[in-house]
């Protein structure tokens, strides 16, 4: 069957099961948009290419399916570099199609030409420049394979215009169904090594003060059930990193919640005092370890990760296991069972008592609003959490609001928390929420955003309303770049440099209404719950609530950057802890 490159591209995407793509057309990709009209694939027209990338990420994180974005050459491609890097840092499977100038024009500084594969080389798992229309079916097949297997990540396919333009003879090809992948250098290892598993099982059974350090790999490998079985078998407490909130339910008695720079005291300190860290799909990120040399000094390390390059990158492991998280955990369960299972565990009563004592003494706290005082962001999040269904998907941008959301929400289901962890991309929440809602229209989706973040990508609410993908946005508006303000207050002697934004400019309510949203402005605690209830009733368009919160409020606990986790700073109302 003779096809042109544009038709072959659509057919290849359909063949991968793609139902929705996020994109924005332009000159070089224009011919590929014509066969899109005849395709079964739904296209969501974004207002900025960065939005397309983050929507594809939100879609992928909510559904487990790869997210797909299509943009044009030059500025279209450079605008999607941030989402590519974000997806690379957080291991999100994406396939991004970029237009390119015609093959013959490459290297001539043609209109809207840029070296897309060169620019994105370091922020993609792999990228392709398609040189021949005949390669297109195979390249798209390989791209999806690379994006979704091993450690997932973004793959970019750069397609010169001549290859998709039916008027160009270079675009002709004989269609074929790719038979397997053509990647001699790509063999991701997924099965764990039996010897390493046996050694890990012995360490686990003997440990007196163990902690399970669970990261984003749990969600990527669909291992939440396996983690639950494992934790319950060995009765070992679990910390869930920012990338694994929801991967183990917050309501479970063994769950200690989030560790790290803004983790709770018990999660942070239990890791510091542990004699064994069972690290499952986590990578010893600096925001978790604090000062690496002082991190969990007495702990032996079991490190299970599908990426061998993570093993020993930051902290040398006593037992390193390069394998898929789910398969690795299942093998650990078997190996622990073979040693006697629950019966074979060391006596950990003292450890559990110590942890219970920390939890009692150092819970997350904040000062409630005094009469006539400003709204507390933590209160808003508690109200939002309590007024929404248990399986609500929460998306966040980056900063104080993100940390408060992670701290104060109760995540009891996997794939209900979507945020930018590694790259820390402000403006992530709104487009990611739209992508998540597109993938899970049955779920309620709330974006918790900061006022600074909202101003970066708010225009995608136009996309949400025109495409009928209704989301809800809670802006925690403190009129500042709040996290930066917090650092300037704490570490720069209250010298505030370029962090003030204004609560009223823009007029968030008016702006949201102009974009077709229902919008509210809330300043008093007693208005919070009714506003959320009203928002939850609205399903035919997006809703934005501008919550005016206390500008002085800071995120606690906090481990200052570069400090040891032993130097955790608690809320001022809590007595300084003695470890």
């Amino acid at each position, binding site marked *: 069957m003779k096809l042109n490159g544009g038709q072959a591209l659509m057919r290849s995407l359909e063949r991968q099961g793609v139902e929705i793509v996020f994109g924005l057309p332009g000159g070089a990709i224009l011919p590929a948009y014509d066969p899109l009209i005849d395709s079964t694939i739904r296209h969501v027209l974004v207002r900025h290419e960065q939005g397309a990338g983050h929507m594809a990420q939100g879609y992928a994180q909510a559904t487990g399916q790869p997210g797909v974005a299509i943009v044009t050459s030059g500025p279209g491609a450079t605008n999607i570099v941030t989402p590519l890097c974000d997806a690379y840092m957080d291991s999100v499977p994406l396939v991004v199609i970029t237009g390119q100038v015609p093959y013959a024009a490459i290297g001539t500084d043609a209109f809207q030409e840029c070296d897309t*594969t*060169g620019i994105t*080389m*370091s922020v993609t*798992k*792999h990228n392709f*420049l398609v*040189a021949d229309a005949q390669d297109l079916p195979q390249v798209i097949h390989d791209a999806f394979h*690379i994006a979704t297997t091993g450690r997932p990540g973004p793959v970019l396919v750069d397609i010169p215009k001549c290859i998709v333009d039916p008027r160009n003879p270079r675009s002709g090809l004989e269609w074929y169904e790719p038979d397997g992948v053509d*990647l*001699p*250098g*790509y063999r991701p290892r997924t099965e764990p090594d039996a010897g390493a598993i046996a050694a890990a099982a012995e360490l686990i059974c003997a440990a007196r003060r163990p902690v399970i350090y669970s990261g984003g790999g749990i969600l990527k490998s669909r291992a939440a059930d396996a983690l639950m079985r494992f934790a319950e078998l060995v009765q070992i407490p679990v910390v869930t990193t920012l990338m694994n909130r929801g991967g183990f339910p917050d309501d479970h008695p063994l769950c200690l919640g989030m560790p790290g720079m803004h983790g709770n005291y018990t999660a942070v300190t239990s890791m510091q005092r542990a004699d064994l860290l069972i690290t499952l799909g986590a990578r010893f990120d600096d925001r978790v370890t604090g000062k690496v040399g002082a991190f969990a000094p007495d702990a032996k390390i079991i490190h299970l990760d599908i*990426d*061998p*390059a993570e*093993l*020993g*990158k930051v902290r040398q492991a006593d037992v390193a296991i390069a394998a898929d998280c789910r398969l690795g955990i299942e093998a650990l369960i078997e190996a622990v069972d073979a040693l006697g299972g629950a019966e074979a565990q060391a006596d950990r009563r003292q450890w559990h008592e110590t942890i219970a004592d920390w939890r009692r003494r150092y819970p997350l706290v904040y000062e409630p609003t005094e009469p006539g005082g400003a709204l507390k962001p933590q209160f808003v999040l508690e109200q939002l959490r309590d007024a929404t269904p248990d399986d609500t998907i929460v998306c966040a941008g980056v900063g104080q609001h993100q940390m408060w959301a992670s701290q104060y929400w109760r995540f009891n289901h996997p794939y209900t928390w979507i945020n930018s962890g590694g790259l820390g991309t402000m403006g992530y929440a709104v487009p990611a929420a739209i992508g998540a809602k597109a993938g899970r229209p049955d779920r309620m989706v709330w974006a918790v955003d900061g006022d600074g973040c909202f101003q970066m990508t708010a225009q995608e609410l136009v996309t949400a309303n025109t495409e009928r993908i209704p989301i809800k946005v809670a802006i925690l508006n403190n009129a500042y770049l709040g996290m930066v303000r917090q650092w300037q207050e704490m570490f720069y002697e209250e010298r505030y440099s370029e962090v003030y934004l204004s609560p009223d400019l823009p007029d968030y309510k008016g702006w949201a209404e102009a974009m077709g949203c229902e919008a509210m402005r809330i300043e008093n605690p007693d208005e919070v719950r009714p506003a959320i209830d009203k928002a939850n009733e609205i399903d035919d368009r997006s809703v934005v609530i501008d919550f005016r919160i206390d500008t002085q409020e800071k995120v606690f606990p906090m481990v200052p950057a570069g400090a040891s986790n032993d130097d955790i700073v608690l809320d001022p109302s809590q007595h300084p802890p003695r470890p």
Partner: protein
Amino acid sequence: MAVKPHHTLVVLVENKAGVLARVAGLFARRGFNIESLAVAPTDDSRLSRITLAVDAESAPLEQVINQLDKLINVVSIRELAPSESVERELLVVTVNATGETRGQIMDLVRIFDGRVLNVGPDRLMVSMSGGPNRVDDFESLLRPYGIAELQRTGKVALPRLASAGGEVGEF
């Protein structure tokens, strides 16, 4: 010349556009230092062989190998310890050679199994190949005569036959 501790890696890569940029870019962004680099196609036209000397102090070897292995176009990686490999490097040098020094230089060329490539009225262009230490020695012995131009290729290496373990290529 002080010899820094280094590891020699022989990396088989797919012979595709941009692969060298991927390898070089990886080293740059991960902070691994390359001491020398030689690239050429192999007898299998689908593959190229990159011989890399990596500064052993810039990063743990295991990290370098694991990060390299993540590049999709990298087919296999093998470390060659100097004791288990035969290393060769080519040097081409133009050296000042006046009447009285020409004979001394010719002696050195003969001792080091070099060749004269080009002769001028007061200069000689010579080539010499050998193990990196031998090339270093030759270069330092020529230096006092005045070197006009010098080019070294970076080393290539293959496993020593007596201890050649597994297969290098996997096709």
